């Protein structure tokens, strides 16, 4: 399923509730709560790992980037000035570290400073592995998965089975999984999508 880039980018999620939840998690981490840190890792692990993988790095290299991002976060967590923007901070850090690894593997000089790195990143053409459209897509997919977890279990199951599995489950399979008739799935799916949209617009 491929929409044009212009169509895809014309919708923005408010996701202010997700940002507030993120900020609360960061504050709890600063107070020394291991459970909050675990939740933060669980929440972001897929997004952070996806960035180097989508840029073409191997599983091993992507694991290195992943670990470096969280290592940097644990070192800087008390200094991050806008905890509600932790998602942007992590994505940017993953992007820089991915780019640094790509340059290093090609024998290029790796920029020493963030400013130098940003200048280089800005000069990357749009079709590059880490183009902004790709990062926006990954971030939105992250937001959707986070929002999905706020829905009731039945909705989570319906939407996951239809949209997040490959190949997608048939209505008959979804109906069997949640114990309703196949004909009920279409209206249930619509209602669940609207609920998901509502969570994303908060």
């Amino acid at each position: 399923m491929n929409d044009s880039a212009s169509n895809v980018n014309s919708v923005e999620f408010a996701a202010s509730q997700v940002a507030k939840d993120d900020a609360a998690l960061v504050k709890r981490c600063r107070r020394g709560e291991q459970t909050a840190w675990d939740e933060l890792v669980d929440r972001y692990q897929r997004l952070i790992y996806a960035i180097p993988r989508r840029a073409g790095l191997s599983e091993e290299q992507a694991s290195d980037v992943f670990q470096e991002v969280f290592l940097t976060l644990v070192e800087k967590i008390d200094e991050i000035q806008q905890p509600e923007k932790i998602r942007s901070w992590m994505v940017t850090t993953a992007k820089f570290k991915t780019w640094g690894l790509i340059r290093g593997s090609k024998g290029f000089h790796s920029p020493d400073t963030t400013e130098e790195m940003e200048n280089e990143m800005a000069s990357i053409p749009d079709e590059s592995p880490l183009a902004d459209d790709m990062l926006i897509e990954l971030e939105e997919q992250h937001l959707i998965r986070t929002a999905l977890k706020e829905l009731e279990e039945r909705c989570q199951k319906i939407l996951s089975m239809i949209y997040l599995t490959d190949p997608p489950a048939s209505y008959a399979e979804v109906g069997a999984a949640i114990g309703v008739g196949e004909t009920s799935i279409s209206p249930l799916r619509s209602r669940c999508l609207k609920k998901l949209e509502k969570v994303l617009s908060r």
Partner: protein
Amino acid sequence: MTGQAALYGWSRKRLEFAAMMKSNEKNLAHIINRMANDTAVNAPADAITYAKNLYRTRSTATQPSAFRRILAVLQLDLVPNKAAFGERSVSGVQARQLLFEAGDNAVDLRINTGGEKFLIRGQILGTGFDSGSEAELAGSGHKVRVKLDTNGGFSFAGLGSGEYGLTIQSTDTEIVVEKIIL
């Protein structure tokens, strides 16, 4: 409201509703598109475990150790030209001597007068206080902080009369001597 105005209002609301529906449909299509294209996978389990353990290391490293605060208790107060309890005659000591007990340590203070000003010399006895430890005297508008010497000694000069408090601090222990009246 005239029939025409009512009709206009109804038409406008209908248009707004249609626009909203269109917008919602667009949002829903966008959400569906994003989900259908979501091919991201979980990070490897060992990488996740590593990330979670990073914080455990931090928590251990930054956890403050137990800090002890001990209130010193006066054991002996020798005033010049005044026989102490149990002494037959006055001693020749010119400085007032105060000895405090503070847990495993003791604090020995000598107070001299030089005209209208006082000099306090002191020494912490026992272990746990090295030359990096500090002593702070506060009171009567003064607050002075000095480092202990290699023998645990310290001094404060040029003090006016009044009530002072002394704090001697190491990395894990603080000894407090209250109410030193000059």
